[in-house]
């Protein structure tokens, strides 16, 4: 494709400075695969670490699901794999709490924050904006290694006498503040805090890098409003992370002082074993405020990249421009802003002043508006599209389905009067698993299927992909949908054996059903793991642009090279959604194709002209004289 700019020698400049440093670069195993500073390699490192963490988190969930389904049965294999925590084939109650805690932590932070943003921001930001690499490749590398260290520390807590942290992923004090409170509050909690401190550092280094890269390193012509929505989503996600995580950091500092140095920031009037502790005047509720000031933005840190990925995949595979490009950006902006002022909806039952509660309720319900805008735009993009059901597309559409389901239950919970009844029940478990555990995970899987050819230069197997999709989609609904009804019945979350309560005994069969569905879903993931890892080595070689996409990453060679483009970085002339443009030769026009080469499809708007179309004359514009039959066709299509 003749894509080099005719008109801008300046673009050449831009790259030169960059190429320079790389000329005498000796590639050794260590700096290519381990301490790599190349964004593509770092993306793979994040992805594979994320997948490993996801598998660990998933195994944990199966373990505690078995306990919930068959609380009285003995499973000798538990003793084999867990030792004293599975003594007699029964899961230890404290260990159950640890599993739930670490499952949540791993999934929320390690898989859906670092695994998702780390992979796709690193892979796509430089590629899609046309940059040779991240603003600071070195910080980028550090970001990965801090994340890796955090993962190791988190997992290492399984190998200590007292077991991992067990106060829930939200680590509310006093359980987390008093090392004597329960076994998991001891060293396990300390390791949890250490791991999170590393994690926050990693996320900060990644975030400021993503932001600076997007702002500073766009190629010629890539104005902010020509950026693909993926980049917009990663950009806002990074801003959220940079502003929200430090607050968790402060909360953690104060918690560490409470734990280890006897301060009473979060502690007051506590008795352990009948003995009063000296702490007075602290407030555990303040921890919740600090935690959820991060915690709520965090859930959007999780979903926004998935939404960005979905925008790209749905537009590409519907062969249609994304519907409402600017509305999408504005709703991302709206979500970013609003997500800082809704945290109180996690605390309606903390004795919050009902007036304040109603303020938080108001902001919470408003955040549903931009969320709904995005959903409707996806549906409008799909509407009458020329849909290609690739596995990535299936997962992207799956995301839309789950996002609707989970968003609706979010509205239930956002109502203070309903939430007072539903808080800390399985209804909340159902809500957040459907939006995070399903929607966001589907976005991540969609991204993996879609960009696998770019990541590894190989194709994944489609058949396995479809099977994986259907197994995951169906089992996910079977697992999480019934939980709503348990929640409506008041079944509390985080209980080792809630079916012991007389009024909840009836839920035991449903628990078994859910567990079986979960096991089937987990087996479905084996298909994915096989498909993913085997095709890295044995997959069919990928073509350069397998999905006929418009974005810049597909103009780079299949084999990864340092600096991404062998020659000059392409210049960008158009937005990334010129799919099925009337009059065009193909049903896609990549961003780097100049208008002078697409005379047959240019529209007056492309020249900045918004008046009467019939009046417009330009050398590079062909008025579309529709024949009668064309007109009829067009009529029908609209």
């Amino acid at each position, binding site marked *: 494709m003749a894509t080099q*700019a*005719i*008109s*801008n020698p*300046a*673009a050449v400049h*831009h790259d030169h400075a960059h190429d320079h440093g790389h000329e005498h670069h000796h590639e050794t195993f260590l700096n290519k695969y381990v301490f790599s500073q190349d964004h593509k390699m770092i993306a793979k490192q994040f992805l594979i670490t994320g997948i490993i963490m996801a598998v660990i988190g998933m195994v944990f969930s199966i373990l505690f699901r078995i306990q919930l389904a068959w609380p009285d049965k003995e499973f000798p294999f538990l003793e084999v794999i867990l030792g004293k925590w599975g003594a007699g084939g029964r899961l230890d109650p404290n260990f159950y709490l640890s599993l739930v805690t670490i499952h949540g932590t791993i999934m929320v932070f390690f898989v859906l924050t670092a695994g998702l943003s780390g992979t796709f921001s690193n892979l796509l930001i430089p590629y899609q*904006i*046309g940059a040779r690499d991240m*603003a*600071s490749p070195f*910080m980028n590398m550090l970001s990965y290694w801090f994340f890796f260290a955090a993962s190791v520390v988190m997992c290492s807590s399984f190998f200590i006498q007292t077991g991992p942290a067990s106060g829930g992923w939200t680590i509310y004090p006093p359980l987390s503040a008093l090392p004597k409170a329960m076994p998991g509050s001891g060293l396990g909690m300390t390791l949890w805090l250490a791991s999170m401190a590393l994690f926050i550092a990693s996320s*900060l280094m990644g*975030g*400021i*890098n993503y*932001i*600076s890269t997007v*702002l*500073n*390193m*766009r*190629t*010629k*012509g*890539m*104005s902010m409003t*020509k950026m693909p929505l993926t980049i917009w989503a990663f950009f806002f996600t990074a801003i959220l992370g*940079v*502003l929200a*995580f*430090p*607050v968790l*950091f*402060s909360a953690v*500092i*104060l918690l560490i*002082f409470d734990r280890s*140095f*006897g*301060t*009473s*920031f979060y502690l007051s009037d506590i008795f352990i074993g009948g003995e009063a502790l000296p702490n*007075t*005047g*602290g*407030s555990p509720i*303040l921890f919740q*405020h*600090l935690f959820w*000031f991060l915690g709520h933005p965090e859930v959007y840190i999780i979903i926004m990249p998935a939404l960005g990925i979905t925008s790209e995949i749905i537009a590409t595979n519907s062969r249609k421009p994304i519907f409402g490009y600017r509305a999408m950006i504005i709703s991302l902006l709206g979500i970013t802003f609003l997500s800082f002022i809704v945290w109180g909806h996690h605390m309606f039952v903390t004795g919050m002043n009902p007036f304040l509660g109603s303020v938080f309720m108001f902001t919470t319900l408003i955040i549903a508006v931009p969320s709904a805008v995005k959903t409707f735009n996806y549906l409008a993009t799909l509407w009458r599209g020329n849909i290609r059901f690739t596995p990535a597309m299936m997962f992207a559409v799956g995301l839309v389905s789950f996002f609707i389901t989970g968003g609706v239950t979010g509205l239930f919970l956002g109502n203070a009067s309903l939430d007072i009844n539903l808080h800390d029940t399985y209804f909340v478990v159902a809500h957040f698993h459907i939006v995070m555990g399903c929607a966001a995970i589907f976005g991540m899987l969609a991204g993996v299927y879609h960009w696998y050819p770019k990541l590894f230069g190989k194709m994944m197997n489609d058949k396995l992909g479809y099977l994986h999709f259907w197994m995951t989609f169906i089992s996910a609904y079977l697992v999480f949908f019934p939980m709503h009804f348990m929640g409506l019945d008041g079944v509390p979350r985080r209980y080792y054996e809630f079916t012991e309560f007389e009024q909840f005994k009836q839920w035991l069969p449903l628990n078994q059903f859910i567990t079986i569905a979960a096991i089937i879903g987990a087996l479905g993931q084996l298909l994915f793991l096989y498909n993913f890892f085997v095709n890295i080595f044995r997959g069919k070689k990928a073509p350069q642009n397998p999905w006929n996409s418009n974005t810049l990453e597909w103009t780079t060679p299949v084999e990864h090279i340092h600096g991404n483009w062998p020659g000059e970085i392409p*210049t*960008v*002339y158009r937005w990334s959604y010129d799919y099925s443009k009337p009059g065009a030769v193909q049903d896609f026009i990549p961003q780097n194709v*100049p*208008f*002078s080469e697409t005379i047959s499809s240019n529209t007056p708007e492309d*020249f900045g002209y918004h008046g009467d179309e019939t009046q417009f004359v*330009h050398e*590079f514009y062909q008025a579309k004289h529709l024949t009668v039959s064309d007109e009829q066709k067009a009529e029908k299509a609209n």
Partner: protein
Amino acid sequence: MSTVAQIDEVKSNPWGGGRSPFSVEYGKLMMWFFLLSDVFTFSALLIFYGAMRFKNLSWPEPDYVFQSAPGIHGNAPLVFVGIMTFILIFSSVTMVLAVEAGHRKSKAEVIKWMVLTIIGGFTFLSCQAWEWSHLIHEGMNLHHNPFLNANGTPGAVQFGQLFFVITGFHGFHVFTGVIINIIILVNVIAGTYERRGHYNMVEKVGLYWHFVDLVWVFVFTFFYLV
């Protein structure tokens, strides 16, 4: 040919791509965003302080707690912390001068002002150390607060705890700032930036240093004034 150039012409406005919209190199941009995130760290701590203070019905009187200085025992409210604050702000001024000298590529002057900045930072830290040890000597620590509340009730322990944690956290920032300043100074002396042709690194640590000073103004206001 000329028309082609026109229709395919890429607008060269600041946000049009191919350049930094603020004409700022990425390192400085990253520093700005780091500082923005640190703003949130300190804000969280200071808001926590505010919440604690309002939660407790009464609170020790700063004029009473902070009334000593080396050689002066009592009756000199806020004198010592005033001196500390002055020193820190003064070190910000010398930092500005170092950055300015960097723009003129005057190595000798950069060295001079950097050295003064570092001395200012160390002096501040020493003052803080004196104040801490004085207060500890008076019996204030993480478990105990000897200073009565303004209304005569036993002093809220959170006063001392937050004092040590927050001024400690700020002091840690100053300390890292001083260390980074020293590293940069060594590079200046070694001529690294002279060879590089610009003193951008001095500007970046300058941003950090000013930020740390600015945070002190807030810490000072929260603990000593209101």
